[in-house]
């Protein structure tokens, strides 16, 4: 299928996050927790409308993609996350960027 024109695609934002926990969190567990909390907080319809997906997650640091209109809702979902895989966590938002590269350079490589 012919790909959509760039002007017809959804505009996206990339949120850099860090998970504060005692034990490192697994990628699959993080993805499951995001979708579960998202469905609980926003409802299935609201979660689908936000277009939230986890792009990458490694060493408790990750990037989450969402629609540009639903950044605050996505951060709200992350703020409501308290447990991942049975252990207490804080999901801290580092910042929001318009590109994956921007999110990586501005927020994830800053302290390293």
């Amino acid at each position, binding site marked *: 299928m012919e790909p959509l024109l760039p002007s017809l695609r959804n505009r996206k934002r990339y949120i850099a996050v860090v998970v504060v926990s005692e034990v490192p969190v697994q990628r699959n567990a993080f993805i499951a927790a995001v979708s579960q909390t998202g469905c609980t907080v926003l409802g299935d319809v609201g979660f689908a409308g936000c277009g939230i997906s986890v792009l990458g997650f490694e060493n408790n640091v990750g990037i989450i993609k969402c629609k540009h209109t639903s950044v605050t809702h996505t951060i709200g979902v992350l*703020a409501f996350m308290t447990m991942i895989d049975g252990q207490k966590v804080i999901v801290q938002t580092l910042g929001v960027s318009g590109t994956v590269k921007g999110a990586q350079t501005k927020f994830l490589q800053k302290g390293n």
Partner: protein
Amino acid sequence: MVKNNYFDYVSADFIDDLCSKIAAGAELDPEDFFSFREHIDSFFKNFGITDVILFRKSGKSASAFSNACKSLLADCSAQSAHFNHPVRYYKGIEIEAENENALYSAVRKERPNADFVAIRSSDEKVIRAAADSLDVDLVIPVSYSEGRAQNSSPNLHVSVGQINHIAAKIAKDKKTAFGFDIYPFLQTKGYRRSKILADCMEMIPILRKYRVPVLLFSGADSFYDARGPYECEAFGSLLGLSREETAAAVSLNPAEIIELRKRQQSGKMIMSGVEIVENDLND
């Protein structure tokens, strides 16, 4: 460019919990509170918080503030000219009163010792009385108690009070703010969380109409309840606040309250609406 201060309102127990985590991680001596200052500051700084209101529940004795909290607060009370820490701490009291009379007596007792007085109640009469008091800085219309909820792992019973246009108008006139914390939302889930959210959402249009200042904060009680200004703003937008309102709720509104209270404590405010702006008119 003016740099905004970002406020948070956390329990004194939170600082103790944070200290124990720091002590475990950095192998510090738990008795050496001065060595904790840097770590506590950097924790808040990582979240982007510059001003922290430490609150203890009213009714507990003054010693309810642990030594760690006392050292943080002492540093800031001696601040002024050579205050060079990245984070500033204020002493707050949270009063949970059952009725108006209990509220008045508790406020009268606690006000002189605190930078910030907050009332937490879901009772309409208490909320209105608190909004009407000049000595109250913040009304939190969400109260909670542990141990009454069933079939839920975070065992917290939360009740939300209602406000009407009269209470909102009084709050605006008396410059009393309304605040919402994330903590009860983290401790509940499912239907009960959505019910609390719905009750809080109902208040927002009334507060907006009468331009009552709204505050958003974490209200953290333990280490894992900590949330930054980003998250507080997002929480506000879930409640139905606009982007400008959420931005003001974590920075400008608390700063104004603290500033007003400082002016009152300086003795220049004689009464509500009357303030000495210049000491000597002959100069």
